């Protein structure tokens, strides 16, 4: 017998039921005749409060609300990848088939296709002892990814029934596990997991490997580790979404979960269209084969926006449990925070800073803490990295969401308005950004790229910092009066900014650059600096050095040297030497 309640009041996405309904906190409910999906968010003796994930227009007091007995959950199984879901994991393609171009209310569709038969290879047989996390079957989910179906975390025991290899739907039971108490558990390809509860793992450990993105300013200057957390804050138009798209396209994660939380519909369409055409640099298959999209655009109901973040996280953790490196793009966490604020306002809770609820900080920390590099229950290693965009109001980083996010992430890629205005992209500002992972990752860079990698990176950073303080002076008195060695710093910093930090996402070569080329680019820039500095020390003025086009030539390396022709750097080294000799010869 299902518990029911009667609607007493409606206020936007929040509805109230009178009396003690016996519902549970976080339980999923069906509201009214159209069976709108909702969740219990507060209980008192005389009132039950529910947030509804769909438009509430037309709801009447007196309508029936039915409890389902389960918490808000997602369905985990093959078919998640290449798919696009709304905030509560309803497949948008199926919704489009049943209700046309608009998203109607009360659409009841299964999260995963229940009719499709998957080719299953069984990994256990009768008599095997299994525990939570044991892989019992494998399915080729997409061309790139093998889906490993696991025993749910809380079940362990002996396999008493198992089917043979063959084609099965996601709902057919494949194995039966009998636990110590003698209870039988039938397990199929798909299983449910509540979105607000993190999936368990055996242990967490620090990460020593970077998430390589092919973006110079990220990989070299402010790297993120696999299992790390990063925030990308920036006012509108500074390139948050572009940065996330670039990482989603080129990073070396196995799986990408892209959460469009309260953002533009056209952006999701763009990801959908582009990712089907682009190929994954690792496997050569379409990028969509390793991607799953959660789209809750800004005009979709606000309560589902709040849930979409957790839906995405749970999907990510599920693939992590299989031993994959998963990266989550959350665009944007501010919209999620604003959804919290909106619902909190409807609930007439006491507001804290800027109208945000007082629990904003604890929700944010709980969200980012679900990232990490872990050893799974089945002994494999997997990671969830979270890259969250933050849209600070008025582009002001002192607002509560940015400030609280900063406390819980270890990588901060601050986007800058003036760089964006000058169309310097990615507009990540090298002075305000930081990464705490750099020291953890040093050994990896030394072992896998070059021993001098971090040293070069620090020299480049040093030059940029010197430029920044020199610019303060230039603003007051102009650059003409500076001594030549300082003019050289400005010039080299310009080469770094234009030739290294700036990266053209629309250029076929420049959009994704391997670490080895990033290293060689740094090397040649620093070599040029060394040689020029020697010339300046000998008394040659900057104007003489500038007469040569070597600086422009180095800047153009990013376009002129293809990623697969590292040997060309030799000729640039020679060009720098020639430049040095020429200056000496001409000005003796």
């Amino acid at each position, binding site marked *: 017998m299902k518990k029911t309640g009667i609607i007493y009041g409606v206020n936007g996405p929040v509805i109230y039921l009178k009396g003690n309904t016996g519902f549970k906190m976080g339980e999923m409910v069906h509201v009214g005749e159209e069976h709108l999906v909702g969740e219990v968010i507060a209980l008192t003796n005389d009132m039950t409060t529910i947030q509804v994930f769909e438009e509430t227009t037309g709801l009447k007091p007196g309508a029936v609300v039915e409890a389902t007995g389960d918490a808000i959950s997602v369905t985990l199984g093959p078919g998640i990848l290449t798919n696009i879901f709304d905030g509560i994991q309803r497949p948008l393609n199926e919704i489009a088939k049943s209700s046309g171009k608009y998203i109607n209310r009360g659409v009841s569709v299964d999260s995963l296709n229940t009719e499709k038969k998957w080719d299953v290879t069984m990994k256990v047989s009768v008599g095997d002892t299994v525990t939570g996390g044991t892989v019992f079957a494998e399915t080729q989910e997409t061309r790139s990814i093998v889906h490993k179906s696991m025993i749910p975390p809380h079940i362990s025991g002996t396999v008493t029934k198992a089917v043979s290899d063959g084609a099965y739907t996601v709902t057919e039971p494949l194995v039966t596990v009998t636990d110590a108490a003698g209870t039988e558990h039938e397990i199929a390809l798909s299983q449910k997991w509540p979105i607000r509860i993190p999936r368990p793992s055996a242990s967490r450990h620090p990460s020593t490997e970077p998430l390589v993105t092919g973006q110079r300013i990220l990989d070299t200057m402010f790297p993120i580790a696999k299992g790390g957390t990063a925030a990308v804050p920036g006012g509108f138009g500074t390139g948050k979404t572009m940065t996330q798209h670039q990482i989603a396209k080129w990073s070396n994660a196995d799986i990408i979960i892209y959460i469009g939380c309260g953002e533009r*519909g056209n952006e999701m369409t763009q990801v959908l269209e582009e990712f089907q055409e682009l190929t994954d640099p690792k496997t050569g298959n379409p990028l969509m084969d390793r991607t799953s999209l959660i789209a809750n655009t800004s005009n979709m109901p606000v309560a589902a926006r709040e849930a979409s973040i957790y839906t995405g996280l749970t999907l990510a953790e599920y693939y992590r449990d299989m031993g994959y490196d998963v990266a989550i793009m959350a665009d944007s966490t501010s919209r999620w925070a604003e959804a919290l604020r909106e619902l909190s306002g409807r609930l007439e809770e006491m507001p804290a800073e800027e109208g945000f609820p007082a629990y904003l900080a604890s929700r944010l920390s709980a969200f980012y803490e679900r990232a990490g590099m872990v050893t799974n229950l089945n002994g494999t290693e997997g990671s969830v990295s979270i890259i969250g965009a933050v849209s600070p109001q008025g582009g002001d980083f002192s607002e509560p969401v940015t400030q609280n996010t900063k406390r819980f992430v270890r990588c901060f890629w601050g986007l800058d308005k003036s760089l964006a205005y000058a169309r310097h992209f990615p507009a990540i500002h090298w002075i305000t950004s930081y990464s705490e992972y750099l020291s953890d990752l040093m050994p990896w860079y030394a072992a896998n790229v070059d021993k001098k990698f971090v040293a070069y990176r620090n020299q480049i950073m040093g030059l940029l910092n010197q430029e920044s303080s020199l610019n303060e002076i230039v603003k007051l008195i102009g650059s003409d009066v500076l001594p030549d060695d300082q003019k050289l710093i400005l010039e080299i910093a310009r080469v770094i900014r234009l030739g290294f930090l700036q990266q053209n996402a*629309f250029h076929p070569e420049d959009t994704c650059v391997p670490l080895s080329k990033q290293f060689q680019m740094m090397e040649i820039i620093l070599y040029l600096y060394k040689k020029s500095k020697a010339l300046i020390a000998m008394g040659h003025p900057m104007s003489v050095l500038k007469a040569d086009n070597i600086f422009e030539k180095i800047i153009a390396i990013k376009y002129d040297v293809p990623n697969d022709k590292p040997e060309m750097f030799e000729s640039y080294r020679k060009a720098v030497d020639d430049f040095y000799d020429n200056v000496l010869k001409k000005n003796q």
Partner: protein
Amino acid sequence: MSIEYLGLSAINGPLVVLEGVQDASYEEIVEFTVDDNVKRLGRIVEIYEDRAVIQVFEGSENMSLVNTHTQLTGHPMELALSEDILGRTFDGIGQPIDGLGPIVPEKRLNINGLPLNPVSRKYPRNYIRTGISAIDGLTTLIRGQKLPIFSGNGLPHDQLAAQIVQQASLSDGSDEKFAIVFAAMGVKYDVAEYFRRTFEESGVSDHVVMFLNLANDPVVERLITPKVALTAAEYLAFEKDMHILVIMTDITSFCEAMREVSSSKGEIPSRKGYPGYLYSELATLYERAGIVHGSKGSVTQIPILTMPNDDITHPIPDLTGYITEGQIVLDRQLHGQSIYPPISVLPSLSRLMKDGIGEGYTRADHQDVANQLFSCYAKVGDARALASVIGEDELSPIDKKYLVFGNAFEKRFVGQGMLENRSIEETLDIGWQLLGILPREELDRIDTKILDQYYQETTVDLVQEALEDATDM
């Protein structure tokens, strides 16, 4: 259904409370009869058991607790639609005010609309030529885009919007059907009249649907006006395959109205007293732009908003910028120098531009030229700042060139006549001419091959001549 409730239990500003209602639903429309003869409409905005809080669109003047009869209609707000709405004028809640009688509806649609499924959307790629260099060249408008104009009081945003409408509609000589939906929210009579006259003069007025809520019309009506207008736009675009340009002015009045109603409902305010759902409400308007699979039409939006105190960080422009696909920002200083349109190019942006320009759409060098102009013009700001400290004479030769470039850019590229309709080639050629003022080494955003093809040094005389031409116009 036709139970009539007599009397009300409370009136507070535009909100009234009715008790003892049976079977009322959230967002349902109700009809009031005041003093047995005046009809008004209202919408249920909150409901607790048998107590409904109702928003009266026409305002609660003259209503008392005893003289009002209320009737539930049983449905949310709907708009009567047929192709005959073209050329007609309606009030803020969609009732005809041009004396031509009611619309015979082919269809009635819920004005709240439904969210478009991202899967059904088609990514917009078709650019609209507006004939305005600063827009075509640097912040290209794409069909299906939402591109607001951020303006301030006293700036020529209306003229700019009117010019876009005229030139965008005229340029397309094809047989595709084109129409304009105009929604005025709390604007002055003169502004509405200006638009009507402009539409008439350019011969498009039989393709215009106007929804007018003027400054002295009821405030609550304003909350409905854009939704009514967008419902009409969606109907024409997705069911009648027309290309619709929606102009909504002024979004600021819409938000003010929302704040007013929210505060009389006693809601908890968030930023600057605006309700917490301001972002969601704005998003439900702006996201109704787009193109969908299976329909030839499109909805393009040009919302106009006046930034209070010219502050771009104010919640209204701020939240708008986070939803819309770019923005065109007008600048008081340029306006002061009589440069029309006074578009401040650096903060202006079109997010969809990158996919709708270049070879096959406009010209291969478009993106590079745009990037370079942005980048150079950003440097002009530094040079000017320096000049104001150490004096123009003390500047280095290159900084001086930047100053010349900056002035020429503002007068020649940004500035143009109100009737001047430039082709995309003209716009880009002017761009190259201006870039020619600077030495080739300074142009670091352009592919070497494109530079070889187009770059030509411009002498200072030529620049002077061009500037004089610009002043003559």
